């Protein structure tokens, strides 16, 4: 029997596989395909204080081994979540994690404060890295001072597990991980999408209405793995790795590079059951390598 459970600084997951925000809806969209309760955790689509219509269509462009999106955090706001969605997701026997967003610090604090009243939510993922929502032309997560302030403000009102999701669009991601650690975050997750762009050469128009958007999928995996490796050596809090994970081997690579858990994102669009197949695949890997606990893989890179 392989022990697949992981303890992320107090947040216990039955296995290291979490679904990534914005790629798993509110979970129930997957009920036809998988038993959502088998997952280590699910991170719900990004939520904001007020409802958001998101960006205009087209919001998606396929690229080589990846895709760009510019959804822009379309959601019905935290109020709607509490009344309509929370009762449904509470039924899942898995860690339900809320991805919290805002245009300014007050927004973040407001959402986090309201979530405090929801007993089933043991963790929030603080998204300071959405490339499709701007603050003074620059995402929160790419300016040290504003990253620090928003983490500090949310930490003040939220005393359960705080996971901070980092942006890869920075010169040195470890600086931001260290800031998160200093401000009392319980874990960091990385990477969010890389800022990219696509052009239609025939029409000479951008393929996204917003011109630029976030790149995800296997194309970004080498960058994500590098950042997970760098960050896991720079901080003591657990690292949750993601970016282009398509199968169990990819997931294991992130664990080896230093991640304590992983998130499956874009892959779920193509194979809606891939997250549970990755759990099985990690179990197989452990058996094949005679590992009794999945935690033995974390940081096992041989230099």
């Amino acid at each position: 029997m392989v022990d697949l459970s992981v303890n992320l600084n107090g947040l216990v997951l039955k296995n290291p596989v979490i679904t990534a925000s914005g790629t798993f809806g509110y979970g129930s969209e997957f009920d036809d395909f998988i038993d959502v309760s088998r997952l280590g955790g699910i991170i719900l689509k990004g939520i904001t204080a007020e409802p958001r219509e998101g960006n205009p269509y087209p919001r998606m462009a396929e690229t080589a081994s990846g895709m760009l999106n510019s959804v822009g955090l379309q959601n019905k706001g935290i109020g709607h979540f509490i009344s309509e969605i929370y009762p449904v997701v509470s039924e899942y026997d898995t860690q339900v994690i809320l991805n919290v967003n805002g245009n300014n610090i007050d927004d973040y604090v407001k959402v986090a404060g309201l979530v405090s009243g929801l007993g089933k939510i043991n963790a929030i993922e603080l998204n300071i890295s959405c490339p499709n929502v701007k603050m003074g032309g620059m995402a929160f997560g790419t300016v040290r001072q504003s990253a620090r302030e928003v983490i500090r403000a949310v930490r003040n009102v939220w005393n359960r597990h705080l996971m901070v999701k980092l942006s890869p669009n920075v010169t040195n991601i470890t600086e931001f991980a260290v800031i998160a650690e200093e401000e009392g975050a319980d874990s960091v997750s990385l990477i969010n999408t890389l800022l990219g762009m696509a052009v239609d050469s025939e029409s000479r128009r951008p393929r996204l209405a917003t011109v630029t958007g976030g790149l995800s999928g296997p194309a970004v995996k080498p960058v994500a793995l590098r950042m997970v490796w760098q960050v896991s050596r720079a901080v003591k809090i657990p690292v949750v790795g993601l970016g282009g994970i398509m199968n169990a081997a990819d997931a294991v690579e992130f664990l080896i590079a230093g991640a304590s858990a992983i998130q499956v994102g874009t892959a779920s669009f193509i194979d809606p059951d891939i997250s549970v197949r990755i759990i099985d695949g990690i179990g197989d890997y452990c058996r094949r390598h005679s590992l009794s606990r999945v935690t033995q893989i974390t940081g096992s890179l041989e230099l």
Partner: protein
Amino acid sequence: MTRQIRDVKVLNNREISKGVFILDLSTGLVDAAIEPGQFVQVKIEGSRETFLRRPFSVHDYDASTGILSLLVQVAGPGSLKLSGAGKGDSLNIVFPLGNSFTLPLNGERVLLVGGGCGVAPLLYLGKRIRKAGIEPQFLLGFRESRSVLETGEYELVGKVSITTEDGSMGEKGFVTQHSVLSVDSFDRIYCCGPEPMMKAVAAYALRTDTWCEVSLEHLMACGFGVCLCCVVDTTAGNLCTCTDGPVFNIKNLKW
């Protein structure tokens, strides 16, 4: 019907017009509740340029045999690869996805308007309408006679009128210029085709105060409501064409 991920076998693949293919797939699902207007997401294996699945309408579904047919027009690498599928090949599909057309009531007069490969969902819709005792009128628009698709199957289901832009077959012009629209009137119009054509039909329907549903082909990443990439701006805000659609009543669209 519960959505599912399924490996299906290609039973047959034939080119019905230049660059347009009909693939018959053996789903093994007899009497399944697959509704007209729904679609499937096809995984394209072994093509370097196709990362995401590709959506295709249910062109036909035979409930007694479980055979589901797709009409595939070659538009790029994914459809090209699919057009080369051979008997016995396996395809992985996620289906059935999306909402479906609202079927007409007894005795209503029904017009099915298709443009080019937009006819894809109309055959199965027409068959279901005919089964309910109504003979639909098809109005199919094409660029030129060379691009007209086989109409034999449609003729078994209802009346078929054709327009071509160059007049090389049927009446000359766009579907909205066809005489059937001035001669007859309809209770329901169902439409699928290129967006400009659907907008012209919608304008006609609004003008004549006719009920009208259109099927939208927006870019999709997931196809089952999680990515929010496929939205259309409606009177109720941004809705997903993959779950709230692809079929929309024109009165809800901001056209």
